[in-house]
């Protein structure tokens, strides 16, 4: 299956996290909110300018800037 950055998800689409390239504090913050490999993520809503984008992660909605979500690689369902 092909791997895409999380930013390519369309609104409403769900994908599964396969790899997280972020490092340092961003990586730890993502882990804190439960974003680890094999977590399902749904794209909820893009902001007016397309960045940031809100995602549904383990029951909570979190907005990520594209520079951060681009480091999260996912597999589309």
């Amino acid at each position, binding site marked *: 299956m092909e791997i895409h950055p999380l930013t390519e998800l369309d609104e409403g689409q769900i994908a599964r996290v396969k790899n997280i390239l972020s490092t340092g504090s961003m990586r730890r913050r993502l882990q804190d909110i439960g974003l680890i490999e094999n977590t399902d993520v749904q794209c909820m*809503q893009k902001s007016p300018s397309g960045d940031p984008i809100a995602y549904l992660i383990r*029951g909570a909605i979190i907005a990520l800037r594209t520079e951060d979500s681009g480091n999260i690689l996912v597999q589309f369902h």
Partner: protein
Amino acid sequence: MGLTSNSTGLGAIDSGLVIEKQHPTDRVIALAGNPNVGKSTVFNELTGLNQHTGNWPGKTVSCAQGTHRYKDTEYIFVDIPGTYSLMAHSAEEEVARDFICFGEPEAVVVVCDATCLERNLNLVLQTIEITPNVVVCVNLMDEAAKKKISIDLEKLEKALGVPVVGASARSGKGLDRLMEKTAGLASGSFSSCPINIRYIAAIEEAISILQPIVEKKAVKNLAPRWIALKLLDYDPALLRSLSDYLGFSVLDDPEISQGLKRALAKLLEHGISKEQLRDKIVSCIVLAAEEVCLDAVTFHKHDYDVRDRKIDRLLTSRRTGIPIMLALLTGIFWLTITGANYPSQLLSQALFWGQDRLGEFFVWIGAPQWLNEMLVLGVYRVLAWVVSVMLPPMAIFFPLFTILEDLGYLPRVAFNLDHFFKKASACGKQALTMCMGFGCNAAGIVGCRIIDSPRERLIAIITNNFVPCNGRLPGP
């Protein structure tokens, strides 16, 4: 949390990690939780006005403590900073972890958000790894019911092995039971046996090498398994505090350092490097939380939030997001500026009428003219002016702003504007602190704590000044 004479001024300076018990039977309870789960509401409901706020020693992290009387025993609640984890990624997390580990609280209450319990369990699981004396308070049960999420508290209690209490702190529900469980646990009238998080085989093997060695040492009330895990997950700051607390240097202890070497070799044998180890530990905790929730939490309707989503789309979409935002904010300013005029006029009329009477009174008692000028034309007149100009707009602006906050609109504003703020190397949340600055710059600057990145926070603090506050708003 109100400003009381105890919480401000000199009284606020001395508060620190050392919790002073008024009486030897007083019990110290730590109040932990994720940000925005109503932890402060629980704290305020329990302690009322018996609060004392200050800073943690040497840290710019605020700390509040308060007392609550329950069945003739005084409970000192320590409101530790809201955090997502205890891995000490930030000053807040370090303070929270150090207090749970080394502050020797008799019990830890972890407040959770019932509407996204799974994420909150991360902190719960990390806390019960350190100490068995944990009470889980699942707050916002009313919100969860609205969203058609049901939580089986008994199953949750069984899965976690520690007391679980449901609550809706805003209406004061469930806090009696919370106190009952907390009191029971703190006094030792019953004990809990929390679950052990099962790590992957390689980590478990490494722990099983270290744990027996740690058990032989005097580790006070800390869980040996947790110490073993933290030794593997080598965190210099924690190991230093740990050594200070235990009274011996853990890494210099020959048995421990030898055991650690063997355990790390075991991990390498399984191909787990230091960097990967922390990832694996976090993953295991997240998966454990997922497993617990799978059983205890049921989402009855998956489309419970269809209406919310529609509103969200309206408020943040490309076409409608920005116009609605501008209209709302303009509306608020119009209401504040125009609406404040009438009460402002009334107030100034009344207060200046008072000035005339006061002046006549001074003449009548034959006070010297300089006293009259100083007190009436000086002190009273300035005060009357400030009150009549500033009070009405504040009394209108802040409630309106609070309504937007309660409706959850403010995070959407930050979401809409983040892109523009990013261009100025700032953060979207700054839109909120700037709006707050229109009410009062001091309040706006205090609010800057919601911005995570230190650099973006500093930009928000320094530039807040350029937002004209109510007192500086131009009249119509």
